[in-house]
């Protein structure tokens, strides 16, 4: 895998295929066409029930927290921008900018997921909207949950790509390298879960006790162990994220990042549709 000169590869034409479109990209396009039908079926299910309202259904407008969802929608859109920048970077052979953009994409994706977790928990505990409480609950959770799963898979994929970009040019494929990658991913996941947990707890404490030094104190007191663990994980990530010298990852891998980017953009676009069809239309006065 000799490193090509920066920008030497034509990213719009793959001479080894009949059409010039790289196989992985074509595969992703075809998969996304299929995924359209998955979401189409779910959105159709949701809309069918919204257009034929059922007695005892939850009141959508009273349930939703449209400000929060608008915020997370905006964040997800911004993540698409960062994704596009990562692709642009790797197509120029720039590994470090690509890593930074990938990390930002992951971060934004996690904010979106955090908002969704918060939203779900809020709906369940405060608004009594569960999977089984009404048809609205069923269609809402399964649709937005399926989308959330797509985002989570996307984040995991971004994370794997990020870790993969550290494999040194020499020694790829050694068991030690595999273990290092595995540890990198595991620590990353641990950091994500722990910090999401802490953030949600903090938000909860602030909601319960108000925005004061006291609530921060209580928060720190209750979660000191988790906090130390999180900081440790983040520290380890910083250590693992140092420049490892020459890496195997190169401009030739741009197609991998680009395919992933297609997926990520698609998931964002689907969210725009869901945000419109599930959230925004509820605020349109029909009668």
């Amino acid at each position, binding site marked *: 895998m000799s490193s090509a000169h920066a920008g030497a590869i034509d990213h719009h034409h793959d001479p080894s295929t009949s059409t010039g479109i790289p196989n992985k990209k074509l595969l992703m396009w075809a*998969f996304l066409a299929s995924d359209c039908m998955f979401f*189409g079926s*779910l959105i159709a299910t949701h809309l069918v*029930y919204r257009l034929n309202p059922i007695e005892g259904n939850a009141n959508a407008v009273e349930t939703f927290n449209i400000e929060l969802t608008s915020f997370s929608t905006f964040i997800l859109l911004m993540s698409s921008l960062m994704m596009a920048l990562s692709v642009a970077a790797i197509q120029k052979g720039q590994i470090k900018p690509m890593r930074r953009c990938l990390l930002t994409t992951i971060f934004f994706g996690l904010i979106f997921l955090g908002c969704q977790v918060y939203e779900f928990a809020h709906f369940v505990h405060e608004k009594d909207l569960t999977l089984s409480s009404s048809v609205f609950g069923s269609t809402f959770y*399964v649709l937005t949950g399926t989308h959330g799963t797509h985002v989570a898979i996307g984040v995991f994929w971004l994370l794997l790509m990020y870790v993969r970009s550290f494999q040194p040019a020499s020694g790829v*494929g050694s068991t030690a390298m595999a273990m290092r990658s595995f540890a990198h991913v595991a620590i990353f996941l641990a950091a994500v879960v722990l910090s999401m947990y802490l953030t949600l707890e903090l938000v909860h404490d602030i909601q319960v006790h108000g925005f004061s030094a006291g609530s921060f104190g209580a928060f720190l007191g209750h979660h000191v162990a988790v906090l130390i663990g999180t900081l440790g994980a983040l520290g380890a990530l910083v250590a693992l994220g140092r420049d490892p010298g020459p890496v195997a990852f190169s401009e030739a891998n741009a197609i991998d990042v680009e395919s992933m980017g297609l997926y990520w953009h698609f998931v964002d676009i689907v969210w725009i549709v869901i945000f419109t069809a599930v959230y925004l239309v509820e605020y349109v006065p029909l009668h």
Partner: protein
Amino acid sequence: MDSALHHGAAAPASAITLLPRPRAKTGLLGWLTTVDHKKIGILYAISAVFFLLVGGLEALLIRLQLMVPNGTVLNAETYNQMFTMHGTTMVFLAVMPLSAAFFNYLTPLMIGARDVAFPRMNAFSFWTFFAGAVLLNLSWLPMLAPEGYTGIGQAPAVGWFGYANHTSTTYTPGLGTDFWIVGLQLLGVASVVASLNFIVTIINLRAPGMTMMRLPVFVWMTLVTSFLVILAFPAITIALVELMFDRSFGTNFFEVAKGGQPILWQHLFWVFGHPEVYILILPAMGIVSEILPTFSRKPLFGYPIIVFSGACIGFLGFAVWSHHMFTTGMGKVANTAFALATMTIAVPTGVKIFNWIGTLWKGKIQTRVPMVYALGFIWMFMMGGFTGIMHSAAPADAQQQDSYFVVAHFHYVLIGGSIFSLLAGLYYWLPKMSGRIASEGPGKLGFWTVFIGFNVAFFPMHFLGLNGMPRRIYTYDGNLDWNLWNFVSTCGALVLGLGIFGVVCHIVYSIFKGAPAGGDPWHGRTLEWSLPSPPPEHNFDTIPVVRARDVHWHDKHTSEPAPEHPTAQHEREHGVHMPDQSWYPALASFGLFILGSGMVFKPKFVAIFGHWSIVPILGACIVVMASWLWALESPGGYHVHPNGGGAGHGRGGKHH
């Protein structure tokens, strides 16, 4: 095979070595880890034929029960399980995988490629299909039957389209429906992944000169079918997910008391279900479109129109789903729209039949066994098409819907159409796959047995339907004027069963004892016949350059030598790069099997582990680990030297 190979320096040394890459080409290990499209095709074929026999056995039990009024062969619940499993098995485990067998084996050969675009993903498709098939049929295990249950094991008894709300826990509390849901989901994953692979393969891996309008019609139909699969299966997958959530997590998608709409299931199912009909028949049309020109010794009549009508059928297939629901009270507008759309589909279908006849016209028809089946196909498919037109007349359909008339219709399309054509394909490509040719006499005897048995079994069902016999009834009284035709039909079914069994025996016998075939026993027209039988692992020594539509026919009849592919010289010197085998596709499928079993046996695992999610999570972890290692191991590879140069004979060679 006089090719030599060695695992050359080009094999990137980047494989993560958790599991060493398997090298065995034969034996269980070789088959389990293979990424060769030809071997995977054969695996599909073997499984499909096996399940064809299983589904046939179920059909015979159904027919024996109905042979005389008030039959006592099966009780009510067992009968309901039989028709459910018969339909599900034949659609998903027999006809679809048998088509997939041909897709796999032939597509790369016909377009001049060395394999599919993603060989390991191809293996994953097969093993996931296999996992789904096994899981679904595990439901027959007698020890699963709960106390007092009159059926066998816990096999589903909901019909192959499993209409909600009969599938809710209120009406089918047992595991049967869960088996059905999870089994179909696994089969759906397998089909979608396989189809994505074929789409990329056909669009991207064509040899130089193999333009889209030079593709063999079979490859075109594979492409259309693959698009149908990736666009249609999501609908049923989502419907199944919704149903699974209803049954497992208390959602209300189809829960009547909470306002759920069972009709929604029908729409989602048939948005999948009608394209599925074309998923079953288009490959058959493709096969026939290959066989007729070969044995008429002239090109396919109106190739562009055949291709266009195939694509047209694919598109229209998404616009007619509600003709399965004419009696559900959709209203005048919807019934009219779907009736007219359905009639429209008759035009491209008719066009194909006209063109097949045009192909025969002024040809020199050689009635070899594959040709006999192909001709039988045209006749039988025509019959099925006619009853299809009858059903499109919605008011007439109100009498025929859910009666034996419909049963006759779709068996004419699926046996007379799909199965006849798939058998034609088996006889046609058997020499290519096995290197041996099936004898004519027994082959034709088999055909006539199947043909007569089929017609005696299914033609009378038209009369039964017109005489008011609904489908899916396990018993009937003797005073309804149905006795004669039911008896005749069962006799026919026995002949048909015998015929199919005989044909399978004949094919298996021919694989081992048939006469050696040579590369081109039928004077074929397409690229696969330019190869030895069976083709070498790497298919083509050098990638061919295509100069015409029936490329092999053209090459045989021209004196101009074909230009050489630009990489030919390089490959002669350095060998042909082949991907390594891999554990991970089968391992990922195994993970899905564990995940699926966890979802089916939730109540049992709750009893053992205290929580239902343990086993599904374990399965999911296996899937994730396998996929990750799969991504890390890279395609790997070794080099094959087609002309015996390099590291000597056989499978020596050094791994790097």
